[in-house]
């Protein structure tokens, strides 16, 4: 078993993801827990790092109850007097199905049906501090902590049940959610054991959890826990909430970024019944009794904005090449930072062939189907905001700073959210709603329009990548020099065994607001790397799969490559005319993948057929993925299929166009996202490694599609495409092919 803590530390932080460290820590008292959650039994789960510090102090779950309550708490579990199990975690659910997978982990260890386990998530007053739900961290960090907590809880409960039954602890087992003695003559329910208790227990570290090979609830395809609420429309997203006396808000936006408000005329708006205009510095917005009036009032406000001249799409890559400060390898100099290996000059001198190429990726938008939304309510100086965010505690800090409050005066509650993909880390909408609500002295709901979401959120960073490489005629790569400008350091490290390498990331001054995105720069870095590898294979006239295997020793990487190739039938048949196949592989966040794609070039019909570009259609994708022990096969497959589908947009046609501070395509009619018609046959091959701790899987499966498709387009047409999106307007095949 790999040391779990070492694994966590080995993962580099990503500059676009970790905005800040926790501002402060709670100090908990036992009585606070009982006061907050009522009678029953509460199990406190220290953070892994806290566990590490406490190692060897001889803590025990069956101790006297005088253990220190740790400052760093990861989660807590409450067993109420009715036998209900509630897990409190600061993580949030936005479609990745952790509400289900975490409940599976707890149910497994407690030996209770999953239906008795409920999760309270992402509520800053009820759940312990959590940095945020990003970086595929829930499965590798939160799930093991909850497992340990539940396992420890089970042992404590068995002791309590034994005392209550008047039998020896060793003779009590949990069978069908009941505590029974050796001959099953006596039994108690969970409710009967919890009844009348006021216990707070800190879970010990030295507790064994069930090994993946013995899982019975985890490791199975449990249905999404609250699926019925979603298929009936009952689930309340933030934008569905209503509060007593609630008003509707609307913000007046300038036409371009970085604008300053010079003058405004609000008379017409203020004359409308029930409308209040809120003007505070550069912020101007309205509240009204209904959504239509809010919209009309906002439109009636005339504002004179002053804005500077700003860059446009055409200049983007030149701007990004002007680095701000030099950094090497792992982003913020985190633990994954790489030192150059060997000498690029020597590696190139030893090469038979050299290749130097540049690759680019565009800004793209997350476009979560639920746009940013918030409901804000003030009670005296206490502010409560419901909002869909991946960082409830981060948004609490933003709100506290914006309104000069201490953080205990702010509560952020995150209803299960209409997706994020890394795009909902920030609290703009929450702050705007809170500002309007304070002025109105009433609760206010603010829902961003699709155009606002496209314009005023933030984008996946654009980037430029330069690669210089050398390779011997026998297929050995001798040199690898890699420079990423702006897009980020995720997935920048290589699994190819190359003696001479220099891999660098260079931050730049991004002309647009940018931030996290599913997989972050791993998509850009894999696209550049795996396209370049394909170019090298082609230059040597080697099979792209064989070329990769020749340069990779890592057995997990080889295993996914071989698995994907086998299912795809790589090399078995030659693609028919107008079709092409491509392959790519990758590694990020402890997940390994290999992707094979088959594409078709659909020649246009009609009289201008010869002059028009051909459409690229992805016919078939096979992706093999290894993220350690599989927790929920159906949800894992769903995540991988979803990542592949989302990747089609960035690979083929998604791109934000901007000019002088304006987004030119801030609508679904101008920004094409993948639809039913774009979906290939997707086959997912799960490489279930029960001997390896589970890694998260929401992100990494996105990185292989773009290079596999680009390589397949080359295979079909002889045209090498080095910019994402590859074919927003189709592709014009080379004359010879």
């Amino acid at each position, binding site marked *: 078993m790999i040391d779990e803590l070492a694994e966590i530390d080995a993962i580099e932080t990503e500059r676009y993801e970790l905005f800040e460290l926790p501002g402060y820590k709670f100090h908990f008292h036992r009585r606070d827990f009982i006061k907050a959650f009522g009678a029953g039994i509460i199990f406190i789960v220290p953070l892994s790092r806290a566990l590490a510090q406490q190692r060897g102090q001889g803590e025990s779950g069956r101790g006297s109850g005088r253990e220190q309550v740790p400052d760093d708490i990861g989660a807590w579990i409450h067993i109420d007097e009715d036998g209900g199990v509630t897990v409190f975690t600061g993580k949030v659910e936005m479609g990745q199905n952790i509400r289900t997978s975490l409940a599976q982990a707890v149910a497994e260890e407690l030996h209770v049906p999953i239906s008795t386990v409920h999760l309270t998530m992402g509520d800053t007053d009820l759940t312990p501090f959590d940095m945020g739900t990003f970086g595929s961290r829930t499965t590798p960090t939160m799930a093991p902590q909850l497992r340990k907590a539940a396992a420890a809880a089970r042992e404590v409960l068995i002791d309590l049940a034994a005392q209550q039954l008047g039998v020896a602890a060793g003779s009590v087992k949990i069978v069908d959610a009941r505590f029974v003695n050796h001959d099953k003559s006596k039994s108690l329910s969970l409710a009967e054991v919890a009844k009348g208790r006021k216990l707070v227990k800190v879970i010990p570290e030295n507790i064994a959890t069930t090994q993946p090979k013995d899982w019975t609830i985890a490791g199975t395809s449990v249905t999404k826990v609250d699926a019925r609420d979603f*298929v009936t429309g009952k689930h309340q997203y933030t934008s569905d909430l209503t509060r007593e006396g609630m008003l509707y808000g609307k913000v007046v936006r300038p036409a371009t970024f970085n604008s300053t408000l010079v003058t405004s005329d609000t008379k017409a708006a203020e004359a409308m019944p029930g409308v209040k205009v809120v003007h505070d510095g550069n912020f101007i917005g309205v509240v009204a009794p209904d959504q239509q009036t809010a919209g009309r009032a906002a439109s009636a406000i005339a504002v004179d904005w002053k804005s500077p001249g700003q860059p446009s799409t055409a200049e983007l890559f030149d701007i990004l090449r002007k680095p701000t400060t030099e950094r090497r390898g792992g982003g913020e100099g985190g633990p994954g930072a790489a030192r150059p290996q060997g000498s690029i000059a020597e590696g190139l001198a030893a090469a038979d062939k050299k290749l130097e190429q540049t690759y680019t990726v565009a800004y793209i938008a997350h476009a979560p189907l639920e746009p940013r939304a918030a409901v804000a309510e003030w009670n005296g100086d206490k502010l409560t905001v419901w909002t869909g965010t991946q960082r409830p505690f981060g948004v609490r800090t933003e709100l506290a700073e914006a309104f000069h409050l201490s953080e205990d005066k702010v509560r952020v509650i995150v209803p299960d959210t209409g997706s994020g993909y890394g795009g909902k880390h920030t609290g703009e909408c929450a702050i705007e709603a809170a500002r309007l609500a304070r002025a109105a002295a009433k609760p206010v709901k603010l829902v961003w329009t*699709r155009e606002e979401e496209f314009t005023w959120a933030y984008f996946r960073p654009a980037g430029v990548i330069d690669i210089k490489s050398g390779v011997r005629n026998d297929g050995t790569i001798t040199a690898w020099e890699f420079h990423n400008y702006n897009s980020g350091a995720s997935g920048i490290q290589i699994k190819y065994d190359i003696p001479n390498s220099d891999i660098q990331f260079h931050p730049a001054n991004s002309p647009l607001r940018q931030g996290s995105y599913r997989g972050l720069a791993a998509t850009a870095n894999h696209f550049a790397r795996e396209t370049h590898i394909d170019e090298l294979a082609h230059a040597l006239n080697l099979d792209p799969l064989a070329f990769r295997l020749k340069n990779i020793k890592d057995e997990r990487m080889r295993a996914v490559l071989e698995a994907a190739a086998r299912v795809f039938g790589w090399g078995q048949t030659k693609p028919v005319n107008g079709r092409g196949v491509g392959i790519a592989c990758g590694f990020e966040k402890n997940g390994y993948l290999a992707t094979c794609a088959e594409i078709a070039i659909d020649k246009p019909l009609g009289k201008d057929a010869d002059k028009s570009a051909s459409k690229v259609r992805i016919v078939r994708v096979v992706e093999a993925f290894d993220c350690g022990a599989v927790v929920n096969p159906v949800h894992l497959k769903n995540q991988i299929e979803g990542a592949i589908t*989302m990747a089609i947009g960035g690979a083929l046609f998604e791109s934000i166009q901007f000019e002088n501070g304006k987004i030119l395509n801030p609508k679904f009619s101008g920004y094409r996202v993948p639809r039913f018609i774009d979906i290939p046959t997707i086959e997912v091959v799960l490489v279930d490694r029960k001997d390896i701790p589970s890694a998260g899987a929401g992100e990494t499966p996105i990185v292989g599609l773009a290079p596999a498709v680009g390589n397949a387009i080359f295979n079909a047409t002889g045209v090498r495409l080095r910019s994402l999106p590859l074919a927003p307007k189709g592709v014009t095949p080379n004359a010879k092919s």
Partner: protein
Amino acid sequence: MGRVTTLNVNGKKLTIDVDSSTSLLSVLRNDLKLTGSKYGCGEGQCGACTVLLDGQATRSCITQVGRAAGKAITTIEGLEKDGRLHPLQEAFIKADAMQCAYCTSGMIMSGAALLSKNPRPNKDEIITGMNGNICRCGTYQRIIDAIAIASAQEVSK
């Protein structure tokens, strides 16, 4: 501008008083508190707001409420009958045809309209019929499976 004072929603006559130019989606969500239909784009491009008007799949975000007056409006809240889910709702659960599920209401309404017109659609017919609905999480393949499951159930009845 005229007013709309009654709507026939999910088999019930409901009293309202709204300007006839107001969007049907806004009336459903804000006046009638039927929040299962979602706002996704406001331009009829994503399908999250889909409801049935006399059985026809309709984008409620770009439909004025005046045009829905007098018609039978069915929303996601109206599919369940006597505590029993519509076969397509069951099929969505069975096929795990959702992630964040914000598109799910609109998908199910569009799918239900498709099945009522064409009880046994083939894959191409499903793709064509559903192409106006966006699932940003990318569960399209599973939605196709769910519609096929519900279709087979209906036929076997």
